[in-house]
């Protein structure tokens, strides 16, 4: 098959599956789930074939009005091909895992339709060759995420979380759209290649910096950076495989991917680049602090995702192609080990009869050995134990930041490198070691192979995805070799290994053998009360204003303006003596009758 067929298949097959399920297949939920999973496998194979193939895919003209032209077109380069491998491989594993996890769910067809719609949307973002197409699929990712978070929509919490995720993203997209418009005005194009050429030729720097920051707003929403991070932890209301696919590995990475796609813009806009790096670093730190005091296993992972996304965004803010590559490298390794951790937590939750509080687990190491060992490998990668994939990618980001003189973000990132091992070791000790602290944990047993096989595959990737030949498939110049460490052994490596050791040792010291949390820092547990602050903000600046305007509209605007017709009726009545009729109703009927008479005249 040529690249054109492959690209269009990868894009449209999931849409076709989603539509088929909604239109008819939904009656047979088993069939729906198999078709959806099968399509995920086919797209994975297509992406693997596409990664090695040369050539371009044809574009489909979507809108053409005057100078405004949007194609559904493809930019097939190493960045998009590598990202597609991540999306489809993790997507396929999550489909597989879901077959077991969602086996008895009433809404299984709807769930798999949502997954397929998500695959379609994510593919569109990755393959897009222009901003508007990316925005289209960007919004569709929001829709599919809404459907999947709200899968159990009869629960108040799930329904609220879905709405919150969607609206928070909408706020980011507000900026994104303005940014796209400004880039279009500045460079005359929405196509990435054409923008790249135009950036070289002396643009208005103030406007460019603003435009880049506005585009970045989109990434703040989608990648859940401060201050729009609030939706991601709540999004854990969705089924756990969804959390793994969307809210850990792929959708939230879309923001980072978008920044990497337009890194030439960030490179040109220095002021904006600084802001991006700082927001990434601060998010990494704040989210890690919040993670220290959470007790829900999925929420801990959610905050660690925020924190790691902060690293990736910071890497894009370095504003060099090398920095951007480092960020994408971390995106890849993180996708595997975080999907592993989420699916592992899913296995734990499944085994413990939907218990999510780590203090009510304990001792699971012996009852669920495969889950434990794979989870441990994922944790090792996340906390950057040397020679795991996460170690290489995180090192590279830090090195690049230091190399480009970004000292502030660098220091924050080192602190995060200490916090991450601390909270993850806490999680592992409390959930997997010690004694069983509830009946649910007591009855837990190892999950079946359809769930642990994906875990094993991901565990393998968590360690080896940084090495060739795998890394070579994902990145233009594959990183990660033992030689690399020797060459670059310096300040960064020393600091992060010290941070790792102190973090792990500290957590063991505090949490070994404990049945309740010995540390109590309410401000972290309450997530700095940012959610509460937003609720007040929305109540005051939206709902109260809206209620006031509603009343004002009925009792002030309507009476004032409604007099206007009365007054103008009199004025116009004076003016139009022709009609010789005093009031408006009579006029209206007069006119109607006249028209009818004319029509009769014509017909007869």
């Amino acid at each position, binding site marked *: 098959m040529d690249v054109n067929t492959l690209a269009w298949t990868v894009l449209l097959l999931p849409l076709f599956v989603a539509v088929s399920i909604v239109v008819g297949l939904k009656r047979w939920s088993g069939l729906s789930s198999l078709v959806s999973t099968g399509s995920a496998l086919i797209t994975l194979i297509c992406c693997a074939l596409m990664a090695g193939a040369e050539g371009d895919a044809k574009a489909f003209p*979507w*809108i*053409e*009005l*005057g*100078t*405004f032209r949007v194609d559904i077109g493809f930019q097939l380069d190493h960045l998009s091909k590598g990202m597609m491998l991540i999306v489809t491989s993790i997507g396929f594993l999550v489909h597989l895992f879901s077959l077991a996890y969602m086996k008895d769910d009433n809404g299984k067809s709807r769930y798999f339709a949502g997954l397929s719609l998500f695959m379609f949307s994510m593919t569109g973002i990755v393959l897009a060759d222009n901003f508007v197409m990316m925005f*289209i699929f960007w*919004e*569709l990712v929001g*829709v599919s995420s809404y459907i999947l978070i709200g899968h159990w*929509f*009869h*629960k*108040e919490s799930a*329904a609220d979380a879905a*709405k919150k995720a*969607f*609206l928070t993203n*909408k*706020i980011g*997209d*507000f900026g994104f759209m*303005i940014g796209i*418009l*400004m880039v*279009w*005005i500045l460079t005359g194009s929405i196509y990435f290649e054409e923008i790249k050429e135009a950036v070289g030729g002396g643009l*208005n720097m103030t*406007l460019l910096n603003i435009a880049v920051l506005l585009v970045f707003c989109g990434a703040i929403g989608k990648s859940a950076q401060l201050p729009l991070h609030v939706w991601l932890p709540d999004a854990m209301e969705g089924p756990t495989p969804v959390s793994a696919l969307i809210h850990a590995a792929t959708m939230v990475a879309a923001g980072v991917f978008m920044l990497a796609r337009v890194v030439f813009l960030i490179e040109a806009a220095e002021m904006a680049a600084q802001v991006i790096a700082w927001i990434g670093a601060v998010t990494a730190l704040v989210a890690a602090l919040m993670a220290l005091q959470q007790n829900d296993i999925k929420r801990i992972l959610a905050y660690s995702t925020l924190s790691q996304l902060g690293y990736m965004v910071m890497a894009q803010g370095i504003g060099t192609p090398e920095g951007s590559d480092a960020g994408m490298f971390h995106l890849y390794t993180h996708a595997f080990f975080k999907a592993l951790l989420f699916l592992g937590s899913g296995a734990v939750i499944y085994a413990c009869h939907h218990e999510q509080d780590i203090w009510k687990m304990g001792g699971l190491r012996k009852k669920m050995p495969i889950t434990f060992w794979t989870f441990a490998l994922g944790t090792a990668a996340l906390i950057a134990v040397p020679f795991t994939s996460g170690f290489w990618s995180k090192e590279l980001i830090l090195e690049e930041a230091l190399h480009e003189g970004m000292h502030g973000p660098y220091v924050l990132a080192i602190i995060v490198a200490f916090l991450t091992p601390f909270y993850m070791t806490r999680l592992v000790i409390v959930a997997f070691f010690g004694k069983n602290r509830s009946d649910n944990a007591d009855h837990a047993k190892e999950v079946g192979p359809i769930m642990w096989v994906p875990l094993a595959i991901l565990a393998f990737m968590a360690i080896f995805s940084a090495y060739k030949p795998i890394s070579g498939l994902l990145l233009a110049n594959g990183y990660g070799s033992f030689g690399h460490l020797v060459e670059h052994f310096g300040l960064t490596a020393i600091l992060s290994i010290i941070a790792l050791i102190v973090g792990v040792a500290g957590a063991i010291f505090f949490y070994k053998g404990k049945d309740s949390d010995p540390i109590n820092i309410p401000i972290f547990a309450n997530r700095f009360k940012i959610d509460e602050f937003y609720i007040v903000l929305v109540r005051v600046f*939206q709902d109260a204003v*809206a*209620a006031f*305007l*509603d009343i004002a*509209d009925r009792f002030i*605007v309507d009476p*004032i*303006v*409604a007099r*206007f*017709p*009365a007054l*103008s*009726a009199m004025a*116009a009545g004076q003016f*139009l003596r022709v009609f010789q009729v005093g009031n*408006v*109703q009579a*006029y*209206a009927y007069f*006119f*109607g009758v006249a*028209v*009818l008479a*004319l*029509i009769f*005249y*014509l*017909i007869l």
Partner: protein
Amino acid sequence: MLEIIVFLPILAALAIGLGAPARFTALGAAVITLILSLVAAIQFESNVEGMFQMGSDRPLLVMDGFPTLSLSFGVDGISLVLLLLSTLVLVAAVLVSPQESEIKGSSKLYYSSLLLIGGGAIGAFLSTDLFFLYAFHELALIPTFLMIGIFGKGEDRVKTAWTITIYLGVGSLILLVGLIMAVVGLGGTTFQIAELIAIAEDPESGIAAGDQTWIYLLLLIGFGILVSLFPFHSWAAPAYSQAPTPVAMLHAGVLKKFGLYGLIRIALPILPAGAESLANVVLILLLGNIIYLGLVTIAQKSLDRMLGYSSVMHMGYVFLGIVAANSIGVSGAVLLMFAHGVSIALLFALCGWMRDHFGTVKFEELGGIASKLPKLGLLFGFAAFAAAGLPGFANFAAEVAVFFGAFSGMGDQLGWIQWTTIIALWGVVISAVYMLRAYRNLFMGPVAPKMEIPTDLSWSTRLPLLLLLAALVAVGFVPELLNQFIRPGVDGLLPAVAG
């Protein structure tokens, strides 16, 4: 052929009055009109000399010293799109109308009124004679008032009917004054729109810039009242929430577009200087629609009123495209007229069904509907996402074009219209807020206690709804379906600023 399209619904209305079976005749006439308008779309040619195609002309009143009144029809790309909108919504409106036995009162009057509203709107969009463009709109308004007063819902329906009669009557009157002034200003020799535009484009015979401003102001207020431009909006939400479902669909979906059509068809080409000098005024007013009324929409506590306000709110985007006065923006405005018309008709149809079957559409009395009625939940979800401007539906394509059109004139710094666009973009967030809140309250969460649970939508109920949804999706995925007509239409209308 255009004459058949215009007069078939009107003749069918007469036939019903003379005793033909009401629902059957109405449905037949509506479906045939829809098919004929599709045929017209197929026969339409993109590259053709002159403004209108498939023209017909019957001089009715020829007098010395007074321009000839002639019943003449023709289409260009813009009116073709509105024709498709009208016939599509007319078919859906007839289909969702209650069976004859269920109508309290005269079913003849009910169905013939629907046909007159539809036929009047079609006649207005297809008329190439200014007098009849105006007259057909009036023809459609009268049955609208009657329907609200006689078949409306709620205690206040008669009061509401009078309010809207006076309000829109005054709007029409102001409009009439403006149109007469425009015709007189252009020499008073013709009512043919194409000829009027030709005269106006000639600098020798066009209206002086200062006079243009005044005439444009009259047209803006006149058309603006009909389209519920802020602050002339307060008739709309009560009228839509009390009108019978098919009337709300036809008025909000189709007839209201007449005001916008008039601005694009007449005011923009005849009074370009007037449009330019009042551009900033319109920008402020349209923000009144988008932001002020958007917030008012958020505050609504029942679905019918919320939809009424949201329909008013979205008119702001069409005005934004019109103010942009370039081919991107105006094309986007035309596309949005279609998209909005179809999506609001769909939403009103769903809302009407819900009121008939649940007995209420108040947010606090309903909840968790999707658990019990998944088909309704799915359809409403699609409609809500379409109206909130999500990609995949026509509304998104149209809004994007409007935004790009409005932004395109930017120089070194942001001007009025760019700032307006930025603020208007916040309206997209507002739309998402009220649509998602409504969906959350009505369809998600636990099933509300004390809620009656009807059976889910039947196939016959779903048919008209799916028809509308299919149009939104088709145009959303392939906007070129309509853009192929809109592009030459707009370029023909705005030769000076095209491109």
